[in-house]
């Protein structure tokens, strides 16, 4: 089952991050009340322990793969593998969209986001993007207003 030999750039750092997260959960759980085995801190401690053990197991299992990486060789590969340009730009667009929605309102910001996304991800040419964005929002408005009955901000 555990026969993964593919080298993924940056994996060892992500696993290190998960180890730090697991240890953080374990330590936080340690300080929770646990006078008895059924107290509120007992189960979180157990789960934190399992998470830590699982991450350590991943490290142990893939130690040879991780050790085979050289920092100089790995560093230039991390960004193209995890955060290629399209993904990075899109995440940034998404963040901006969420942040400005409060100021611009849902409909205006969503329209700009949709049209911008279609163009960015090469889903449509400008005119088609403008029309598709408007049609999509009209469908969302109809569905949410009359069928799902959800008020949008």
């Amino acid at each position, binding site marked *: *089952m*555990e*026969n*993964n030999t*593919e080298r*993924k750039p*940056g*994996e060892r750092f992500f696993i290190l991050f998960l180890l730090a997260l697991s240890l953080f*959960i374990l330590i*936080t759980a340690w300080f*929770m*009340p646990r006078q*008895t*085995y*059924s*107290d*509120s*801190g*007992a*189960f*979180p401690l157990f*789960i934190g322990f*399992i*998470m830590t053990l*699982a*991450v350590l*197991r*991943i490290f142990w*299992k893939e130690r040879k793969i991780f050790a085979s990486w050289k920092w100089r060789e790995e560093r230039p590969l991390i960004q193209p*593998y*995890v955060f*290629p340009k*399209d*993904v990075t730009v*899109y*995440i940034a667009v*998404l*963040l901006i969209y*969420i942040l400005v*929605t*409060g100021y611009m309102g849902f409909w205006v910001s*969503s329209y700009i*986001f*949709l049209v911008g*996304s*279609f163009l960015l*991800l*090469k*889903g*449509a040419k400008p005119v088609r993007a403008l029309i*598709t964005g408007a049609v*999509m929002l009209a469908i*969302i408005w109809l*569905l*949410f207003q009359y069928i*799902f*009955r*959800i008020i*949008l*901000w």
Partner: protein
Amino acid sequence: MEQQLGYFLMSFSSFKMIFLVLAGTFAGIYIGAIPGLSVTMAVSVLITFTFAWDVNEALCLMAGIYCGGVYGGSRSAILLNIPGAPAAVATGFDGYPLAKLGEAGVAIGLSTTASVIGGFIGLLALATCAPIISDYSLMFASRDYFILAIMGLLLVGSLSGESLAKGVFAGALGVFLSMIGMDNVTGQGRFTFGSIGLMSGIHFVAIMIGIFGVSEALVQIHDLHIEPIKQNVKNIIPSWRLLFKHLPLIIKSALIGIGIGALPGAGGDIAALMAYGSASRSVKHPTRPFGQGAYEGVIAPETANNACIGGDNIPMLTLGIPGDAVTAVIIGALYIHGLKPGPMLMIDTPHLFWFWVGALTLANIFLLPLGLTGIKIFAKCVEIRKGLLLPIIIIISIVGTYGINNSIYDVYWMLGFGAFGYLLKMYGFQTGPVILGVILGPIMEDNYRRMMQDVQQSIPMFFWEFVSHPLTLGLVVLTLVMIGSQAGWWDKIKKSLSKTKSVQTEKS
């Protein structure tokens, strides 16, 4: 009996409900077929939209999406060699070679009829077994639920991923997320870090949409450059002779699907792979060698994954333990609509059980005409550019998440989990166990606490509970065997045993 039949036929009696099942099945087929859109994602997004709906109507739509989505994955597996859903992975092994041989129509026809027959056999098993198991489940104690929850979590982690440790981590992460907020027993905040907003926890729908919807959309951005392939399909309806010839295989695969589905944590993907494996070993004269376009290689996995729907629903409805990620999401939907899947569901709300079975049956009926028609429209849908599709998924995810509590904070959480889920996927972690952990976490913890109180906080007595009751012991042994058979050390033991045996034979 008459009353149960009345509940069963409820969804058949209203035009609106029939329409909702039909629309759900139609949408499910296309959602399942488009690579990148999973049925789990569709159902989780849908939950938020059906908040204000009548329970029956919401269940009708979900039943349709569920059935259609499980089936729909096979179409893109056959036409593009890209399984639309994990349950269709095995279908592509022979379905795509068939398409390359110009027999895509036959493959789609066979997959549709096999799915429908498998679906009916699975639902028959659900209708007959669930009431019996439900009666029996009243005898289940906290220790049994605790073991079942662990079984579900470990099985999904071990069977569906590239690494057992990664699966276990993902499951435990889900359990951790379920613990954030106020402890229901003591009223103390856990992992809230003094934030009042976190006392109510993170809404599991925000986690689900983030983990399944947004993360998948981000992963799909990597494949934007892949141009959609144009397809030509004809000769859809398979002959009766062909169907009768493969009826024994269909029944056998359906039974595999039901059996795998009934196990907590094991879903359609595993059922399909096991049915494919079983067919490749047992069919002596396939139409072509397996892997090169054997009809049997399409029939077996497609029958099993749809039969698995009935199997998956058995532990979900009778024990409250989800069979796989989709049923974990559906359990969440049922909770939102005020229902409590588990032993009391059949006692408190038997009408809902029979209504749900009826809606699934109706969806399965619609699967046949919808599956055998509209292939040309389907081919067009599969050809939709991802650059057009992904922003729409993102916007629907955002709107759906906002709709939970009309709170922008839920959207922030959803996007955060989307980014985290994306990283998990990029580094080979399965996201299904995270959701199962979120659903199973409270079941595990509540039953663990009850057990501890029953044994007066004694650790030796706690472990003694697992071996001193035949039912619990049976579940423990079953869990250990299943997990063990997937772990590397099991093979080592088998190898060393066979070595010892051969040495002994040589000596004698």
